[in-house]
């Protein structure tokens, strides 16, 4: 056995061996000169390599894989341009706390600093957008570095880790000993927990509160605390508002669910937050898109912040009680002490804020002959709600309509770029989600602008025979930018109209079954036929060109100051 645990191997072989031992089954990558030794050693590995068309796609796929499964996603690229193409995907994963490990080739260690062909200081470039990164110059460092990279990526507040491996470190050989290569991270503390006094202070605030609201964020999903949050909300009778990345953390159909808060949140949700006397922030970070103007944000409310990252405490909003630790563990500690309190008065007053907006059904509104994105998304929800569906959205108007009109019941059923707002995210992230969860019905919902940023990955879908459904919400505009121009730049539509190719023909050229939908009556049949087809499908939904996402809190405005839909237009006005 001793000879099995200690054997002479190349750095490249050690890399794949360590990835296998970390549980990796798929990697997304693109070969090139400095990573070729690693690709040469791939043939002996059980890991399936998915060839992408652009390295940005590889990182988004790894990210989508991670968010769909909770496992670390892996992307591989060569040095120089291969590595720099990963930057956007790494920053996306960083802002949304997604665990990915990026492996890049680097020029030979003797050439470093010489401006060699395809040399880039990628550890320097990615320093502010990774949780941690490494430059590996010896084969003997590969095993420990990979183990540390995975540990750092998935523990604590997850995030991207980049490992840059020189060509000679891949080529040279050394003794491989997995056991001896344990992580050595003396300064890394992912497992903090609050002290007794803080728990007591939190419970006192909770029990004294008359108008509490839970702000449910991405941390609930990362921590796997859905049941604990639900139990907490039900026992204490506290309504739940969700962030964009929190959608799915609490069932949309639950009586205590309020819906999404923030810039494009429902009006009653934002009003509820502004009227609250206690905010319970669960794994969320008071992003400017959810708070609006900080000076007027929930100014009468005490704040309890349960958060794993101590650097988030008092960053944007000053809190009264911080509970720093893993959300699930913290709620486990709190739950036995939470008293059941009748808050029906508060809940009734929220119902009054809702008015009839919450129950209005856009399907019952008359067909005006126009196709609105909200109809497409609402129909998509109706057709796919009962299955194991993952919706992956891009960034812009369609993303907000999806958040408003697709009712997410389960965690990891929505994957979207929240923090960085990366256009071009959806298609590759959808591929990653499908690879992670092949049984799931994956729908990429993407605008015509974002789709064209990474559409080269259609070829990846076909080459890998992946059943991914693509719904292009095509309005011929960079819609959200156009909306800002409409509101804040006197309708000066500078550089927002798009002259698009025929997306259905484009899909056909890739060998993907494609169709174009222009009428509301065609939406449901097109979704049904896409689900029945056993290969990938692209649907080009030609929607109303100048539609607007309402309500809207303008950047920097107070949360209760919303731009509302003008009353004469009601076709999509489920949020009125």
């Amino acid at each position, binding site marked *: 056995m001793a000879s099995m645990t200690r054997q002479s191997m190349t750095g490249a072989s050690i890399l794949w061996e360590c990835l296998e031992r970390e549980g990796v089954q798929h990697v997304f990558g693109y070969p090139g000169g400095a990573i070729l030794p690693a690709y040469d050693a791939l043939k002996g590995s059980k890991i399936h390599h998915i060839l992408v068309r652009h390295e940005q796609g590889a990182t988004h796929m790894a990210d989508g894989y991670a968010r769909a499964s909770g496992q670390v996603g892996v992307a591989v690229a060569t040095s120089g341009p291969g590595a720099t193409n990963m930057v956007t995907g790494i920053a996306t994963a960083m802002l949304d706390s997604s665990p990915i490990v990026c492996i890049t080739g680097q020029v030979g260690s003797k050439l470093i600093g010489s401006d060699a062909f395809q040399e880039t200081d990628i550890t320097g470039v990615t320093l502010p957008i990774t949780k941690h990164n490494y430059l590996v110059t010896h084969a003997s460092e590969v095993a420990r570095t990979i183990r540390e990279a995975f540990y750092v990526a998935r523990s604590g507040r997850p995030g991207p880790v980049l490992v840059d491996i020189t060509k000679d470190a891949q080529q040279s050989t050394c003794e491989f000993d997995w056991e001896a290569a344990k992580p050595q991270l003396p300064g890394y503390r992912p497992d903090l927990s609050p002290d007794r006094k803080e728990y007591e202070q939190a419970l006192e605030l909770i029990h004294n509160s008359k108008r509490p609201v839970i702000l449910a964020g991405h941390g609930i999903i990362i921590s796997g605390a859905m049941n604990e949050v639900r139990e907490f909300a039900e026992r204490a009778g506290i309504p739940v508002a969700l962030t964009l990345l929190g959608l799915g953390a609490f069932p949309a159909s639950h009586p205590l669910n309020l819906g999404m808060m923030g810039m494009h949140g429902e009006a009653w949700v934002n009003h509820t937050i502004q009227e609250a006397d206690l905010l319970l922030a669960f794994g969320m970070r008071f992003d400017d898109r959810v708070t609006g103007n900080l000076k007027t944000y929930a100014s009468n409310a005490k704040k309890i912040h349960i958060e794993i990252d101590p650097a988030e405490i008092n960053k944007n909003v*000053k809190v009264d009680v911080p509970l720093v630790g893993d959300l699930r563990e913290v709620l486990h500690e709190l739950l036995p002490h939470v008293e059941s309190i009748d808050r029906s008065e508060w809940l009734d007053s929220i119902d009054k804020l809702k008015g009839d907006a919450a129950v209005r059904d856009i399907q019952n509104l008359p067909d005006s002959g126009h196709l609105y994105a909200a109809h497409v998304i609402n129909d998509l929800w109706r057709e796919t709600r009962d299955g194991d569906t993952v919706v992956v959205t891009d960034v812009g108007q369609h993303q907000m309509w999806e958040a408003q009109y697709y009712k997410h019941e389960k965690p990891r059923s929505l994957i979207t770029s929240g923090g960085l707002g990366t256009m071009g995210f959806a298609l590759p992230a959808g591929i990653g989600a499908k690879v992670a969860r092949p049984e799931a019905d994956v729908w990429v919902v993407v605008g015509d602008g974002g789709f064209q940023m990474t559409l080269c990955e259609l070829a990846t879908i076909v080459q890998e025979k992946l059943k991914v459904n693509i719904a292009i919400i095509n309005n011929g505009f960079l819609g959200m930018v156009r909306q800002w121009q409409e509101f804040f730049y006197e309708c000066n539509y500078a550089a927002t109209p798009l002259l698009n190719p025929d997306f259905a023909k484009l899909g056909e050229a890739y060998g993907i079954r494609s169709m174009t939908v222009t009428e509301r009556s065609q939406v449901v049949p097109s979704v049904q036929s896409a689900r029945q087809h056993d290969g990938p499908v692209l649907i080009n939904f030609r929607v109303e060109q100048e539609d607007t996402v309402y309500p809207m809190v303008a950047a920097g405005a107070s949360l209760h100051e919303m731009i509302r839909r003008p009353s004469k237009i009601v076709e999509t006005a489920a949020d009125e």
Partner: protein
Amino acid sequence: MLNTYVVYVENKPGVLTRVASLFRRRAFNIDSLTVGRTEKPEVSRMTITVDADHDQARRIEANLYKLVNVLLVENITSQPAIVRDLAMIKVAATHEARSHVLELASVFRARVVDVAPESLTIEITGAEDKIDGLLEVLRPYGVLEMVRTGIVAMRRGKSSSTVNSAAAADQDVAEEDVSHSV
């Protein structure tokens, strides 16, 4: 207000960049940063002074801890500490000015470390305001060149900040007289 941090980091390539990059990225303005070896070869020690209010100071500490290579962070601003800066000041000192400059240096307990026909180089160690004071009185003679190390700081008395890089560092550093030797 000016906050003084003692920061222990792993002695590895690129760690100084990580720390400096953090301050730049979070828009915290470093007043002074010094770094050097410690009694343990695998550990480096930094003294960082930053202008920050109370909340910012806490966030700086939390953000420093987010760096994987950072072992221990102590904000010693409100604790009794020995704080030292070292300066070398080259002053124009011709024949007639020389004795005045030497006199001033001796008042400040500074040492002359180089003598040339047209100049004197004075070395002074002390708190920053002491060095500022000497500089002030030397300026009329003509300061030709000056270099300062930036401050280094250490807590007084038996309170000590040391760290064992091979073991997880104790994060609770607020208590008085707690030794972090492991």
